[in-house]
């Protein structure tokens, strides 16, 4: 297996401005950052996840809710990114029953066989990648990426995600379920000036989504 771990990051010239320092100084204007993620051949890596983790501060926890529906024996959405502590509801839109489970270390749970709306939501209280499955339907698969930062986005069909990041130093992490290995975190310094980043993913190896998010 030719597993190249090199990640070719075509970075625009990184501009570290004074603005960024100002932002970091507290509550000032954020700078627009766009990240373009492509797969092999330049095609947009749809559903790839881009996460900016601040390196010099810890974002405060936040309680939010999310919904992962089950339609036609599929989890919708397939990939979900949430902040740690988010409670996720798993409604069942199918007429058949499902039994959602996870053996991922970030969140091990198993719901009883149910139809319609579940009695309670599941709180994802640890960061990490959670792989969801249905005990009855082996083909049902969903990913829940639990992160400790509010700065994250899924790549839409356009291939480019946009962020408004306060100036500061960040680690940019990228994940895709088709990756074979983790993409090294990239340090990004955000100043007042807009930042345009792009990254090309090598999705040719054996898919190992778990390994791709250590």
């Amino acid at each position: 297996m030719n597993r190249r771990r090199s990640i070719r990051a075509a970075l625009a010239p990184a501009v570290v401005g004074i603005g960024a320092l100002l932002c970091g100084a507290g509550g000032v204007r954020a700078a627009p950052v766009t990240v373009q993620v492509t797969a092999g051949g330049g095609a947009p890596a749809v559903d790839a996840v881009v996460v900016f983790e601040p390196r010099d501060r810890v974002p405060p926890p936040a309680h939010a809710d999310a919904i992962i529906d089950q339609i036609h024996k599929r989890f919708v959405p397939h990939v979900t990114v949430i902040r740690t502590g988010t409670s996720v509801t798993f409604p069942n839109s199918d007429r058949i029953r499902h039994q959602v489970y996870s053996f991922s270390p970030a969140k091990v749970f198993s719901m009883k066989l149910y139809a319609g709306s579940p009695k309670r939501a599941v709180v994802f209280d640890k960061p990490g990648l959670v792989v969801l499955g249905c005990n009855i339907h082996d083909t049902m698969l969903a990913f829940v990426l639990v992160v400790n930062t509010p700065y994250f986005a899924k790549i839409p069909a356009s291939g480019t995600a946009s962020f408004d990041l306060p100036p500061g130093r960040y680690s940019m992490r990228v994940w895709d379920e088709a990756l074979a290995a983790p993409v090294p975190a990239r340090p990004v310094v955000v100043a007042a000036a807009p930042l345009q980043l792009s990254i090309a993913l090598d999705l040719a190896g054996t898919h190992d989504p778990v390994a791709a998010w250590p």
Partner: protein
Amino acid sequence: MLLRTRIAVTFFLLVAAVLATALAVVSAANRHNAEREVGRQLDVGARVFMRAMETNREQLTQAAQAVAADYAFKEAVALRDTDTLASALQNAGSRLGAAVEVLTTLHGRVLAASGINIKPGMTFPLARLLRARGVQEGNSTIMVADGRIYQLVAVQVRSPLPVAWVVMGFALDTKAARELAAPTALALTMSVRSGSVWTTPITTVPDGGARRGELVTRSITLVKRPRLEVVATLSRSLTAALAPFERLTRVLYLIAGASLVGSAFAAFWLARNITRPLRQLTDAVDHIRGGAYDVPVSIHRRDELGVLAEGLQVMQRAVSTRDQAIRRLAYDDPLTGLMNRTAFVEALTAALGAASAGPVAVALINLHRFKRINEHLGFAVGDAVLVKIAARLTAPPAAGAAVARLNADQFALFAHLPPGADATAWGLALQSRLAEPAVVHAQPLDVHATIGLATAPADAAVAEDLMRCADLALEFARREKRAFAAYLPTLTPSARDQLSLLGELRRALDADELRLYFQPKWEISSRRIAAAEVLLRWQHPARGLLGPGVFLPFAEQTGFIRQITRWTLDRAAAQGAAWQKAGVALPLAINVTVDDLADTGFHLSVARALEHHGLDPALLTLEVTESGFIDDPKQALRMLQALAALGVKLSIDDFGTGYSSLSHLAHLPVDEVKIDQSFVRQFEADPEVAAVVRSAIDMGHRLGLRVVAEGIETESAAALLGGMHCDLGQGFLIAKPMPLAQFESWLRGRDRVAALAVPAARADVAGASGSRRRRAIKVFPA
């Protein structure tokens, strides 16, 4: 080689060749079938084997999937609960008898294991394959570990992403191999190559059960990797596969053997069936070749041989018919239609051979004077007479009788006589049948027959002998001048006697045993001695003095008479010459036979004798019997003329009894006739005979011949003859024949006629006796 053997052997070889070919074809077909059957079995076995492997795979897959899909198991995997995992795997594996149950990470690190000596944390032997996705989920592969072979199936555990491999497998050990091979009756061998070394850990081929060369194999490669190769080999013993065919072949060989034996018998029988009638036909042909046409060809068949036999019979009849026709030509007398001698002898032989043969009488019939009829009345009349005689002899026809004409004037007849019948009576009856004159062209012709009779089995048993007996009887009758004579044993000089008689006669001549006897002849008118006839006696050393009747007929038959005649001529001439020199000129007469006249040099012999002894030819008289003229009158005449030219006198002996015709007599150069003694003896009593004698004397005189009467026994006869002017007389009245000395003494003192004067009397018949008397020149001294 015999036809029979040839047919049988050919048939047998043909059958043997056919059987051998059939057996060879069957054997080849059997082997081919066996090989094909084994190939088919191996094909089936291979399919069954693959199917069994597939079933294994399915079972393993299902078991592994069942484990992998179990939520609790997935939970245990997630929790890395090693002991639980191991027990769960063992539980699943034991249900289907799996030998190996292993759980590994996706990278091949062992998480839990059961049934194999692998501990958690170790790297599974197939880790590389698993990592490289070399093993597809649910596919089976082969693993060799610790010298054992495993069929493995790997199934991923998903929760829901793949997180581990459940590997489950069966051990391919000997027991499993047997189970795999069981449904096909094939042997299974598993060969393993590790690196480049081949081993055969498993085989179900019985030890030494089949040699390698007899195995037919089919190999299935189960796995082939650079370091490992496992081959399953199915095999079948060809010998075992051939076994049922060989049983069949053995039966076929038995049948072939039986057929061969059977065909040998059949061939022999068939050949014999063909050759036996052929042999019969050959025998029949042999019979026909031998002249037996009445042997039936007893073959009754519907096939070609039957047709051949029928054809042969038809041919046999045709040949027989033709043979009879030829026989008729060869055996019949064309004139009378009677048998000829050959046929008669055959018929007589057959009659004598007949089982019921009673006495068989054979008569030989000779016709007197038949030659005269031919000569004077023509052959047409003669033939007519013969036909009439033949008709008389054959009528009435009698069974078991046959009539033949043997030659010109001789017939033969035989007949079965009733038992006890008198052969002589039969012969006399026959004679009386022939006594009547034969009437030809309204002219009665006297035919005098002489009959000789012989009877079987009294006289002889064989045809030829019987004929000879009859012939002897006939001869006897003729000699005795009788019309009929039956055979008597005394008539037959036995062959030994005859041979010895001939020898003795020769010796008698050499040893001078023959004696001259002299019988004087009178001049009847003067009772003086005029001449003498020389007769012969045989002074036999053992049998005493023998008369001429004992040996002369035999000498005539054998031709020896010529020597006797010459001897007699010589001695008589010598004696006559001696007397002539002594002044006693006595004419001597000797008898000359037919044989002598037929001898063309006879007159030379006479001339030599006369010259040698110096005898006056006029003193020698040769007496010829009438029969001497019969066979060859011309030669006889020539000889008589030659003799007459010598100057010797010629006399016709036995005048009146033979065939001599008066016309012939007139032309013969004879000087004298002798009236036969049979007339002389009878003429006193029978006036007719007396008339004949008188006529004969007169006729003789008229021809200028001297007439001599024989057999004068009484004075009265002598007187009577004298009255008839008979010239000379001879007989017991005068003297019996006497030997020389007695004759000479008898002669002494008696008057003699001057013998030499006789020829002169020819011209003067009337005064003959007187002139003869006058011309007598000498008389024996008293």
